[in-house]
């Protein structure tokens, strides 16, 4: 069911955006894996088996991305994920990425929950700071042709409302996806927007540890 045709990594080291030069550049990274879409060209009612099959792909991609960024996991402050489905597929195929993509990164960054419970739609209670990567991983998906660009949303890993960390990274793989392919994407960064200054909840003020605030 899983055939990885291509792996694409993208790193940005941002020193400034016409404001003060950062002491430590902001690092933003994304990885895109181009997979054969096993459901291309037909309506397949039961696609859930692929969600399980993607778990190892997600873990491998998350590890590769972190390695490419060459920073310790503790420095990752935002994340996001996405999928671009080729023309012979349907949007729902991209939705298969929700559990395996998100939880791969969350586990890598220190989340201690039960992903299988989540996959079944069961919520969990959190008190105090139980771990890291408490936030939902923001996502987007589309059906697109080769070279289609996806703006992958990014938010703080522990509290979605941290305003300085609302961001997005444009990801595109030249030449992919062809009609029978899906590009699955993970993205992470080391910090807020380079010149963040529009107020709101600060990362230092996270207090509820519920993944939101």
């Amino acid at each position, binding site marked *: 069911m899983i055939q990885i045709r291509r*792996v694409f990594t993208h*790193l940005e*080291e941002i*020193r400034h*955006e016409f404001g003060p030069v950062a002491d430590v550049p902001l690092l933003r990274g994304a990885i895109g894996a181009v997979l054969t879409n096993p459901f291309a060209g037909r309506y397949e009612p039961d696609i859930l088996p692929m969600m399980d099959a993607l778990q190892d792909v997600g873990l491998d991609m998350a590890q590769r991305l972190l390695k*490419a960024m060459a920073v310790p996991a503790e420095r990752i402050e935002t994340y996001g994920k996405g999928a671009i489905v080729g023309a012979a597929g349907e949007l729902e195929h991209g939705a298969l990425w929700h559990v395996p993509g998100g939880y791969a990164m969350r586990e890598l960054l220190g989340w201690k929950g039960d992903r299988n419970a989540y996959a079944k739609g069961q919520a969990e209670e959190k008190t105090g700071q139980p771990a890291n990567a408490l936030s939902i991983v923001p996502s987007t998906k589309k059906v697109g042709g080769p070279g289609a660009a996806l703006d992958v949303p990014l938010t703080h890993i522990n509290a979605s409302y941290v305003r300085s960390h609302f961001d997005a990274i444009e990801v595109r793989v030249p*030449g992919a996806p062809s009609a029978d392919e899906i590009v699955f994407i993970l993205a992470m960064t080391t910090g807020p927007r380079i010149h963040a200054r529009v107020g709101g909840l600060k990362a230092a003020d996270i207090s509820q540890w519920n993944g939101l605030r």
Partner: protein
Amino acid sequence: MPAKIRKIIVQTDEVRVEMGRDVQPPVRKALAMAVIENPFAGRYVENLDELIAIGEELGGLLGARCVQALGIAPGDAHSYGKAAIVGEAGELEHAAAILHPKLGAPLRVAVEKGAALVPSSKKMGGLGTAIDVPLGHKDAAYVRSHFDAMEARVADAPRANEIVVAVVVTDSGRPLPRVGGLMASEIKGVDGLR
């Protein structure tokens, strides 16, 4: 004056399967780009030495970033290429100043050797303009399996007063080469051609 770099982008592309066939070992390319301020934006300047020096600086920096991204020893690089996109307040000649006089020497150090000409392309462009960086074998320009290209593009650059400078290094040729010609195994690597 060293280059005023706003951002550096590094991409790797690893092809494992092409047309349903396994590519073993996978074909891998790395692209490194620097978005720099164009010191001559908005005016005609006769002497382009400052950009020539920036080219020399970036040849080493971007070449090393590519080799690092591939995780290879410098001598294991196969092919290379370079390109520049000049923002609209600049002039095409600014790309030439960066690319041609001095960028090649430090790039060749980064990939160890490199007898062949570094293929290049250049254009004027705006934010998100794509340029296809041509690729050729680093020691023999006629190696047919290694004629290729890699698309380079920065979503938010070049601004009018910026230049995007790109270098690509690979550790392989095309995924399934079968159009004949000079093979990498046959090259002498002396004259840069064969």
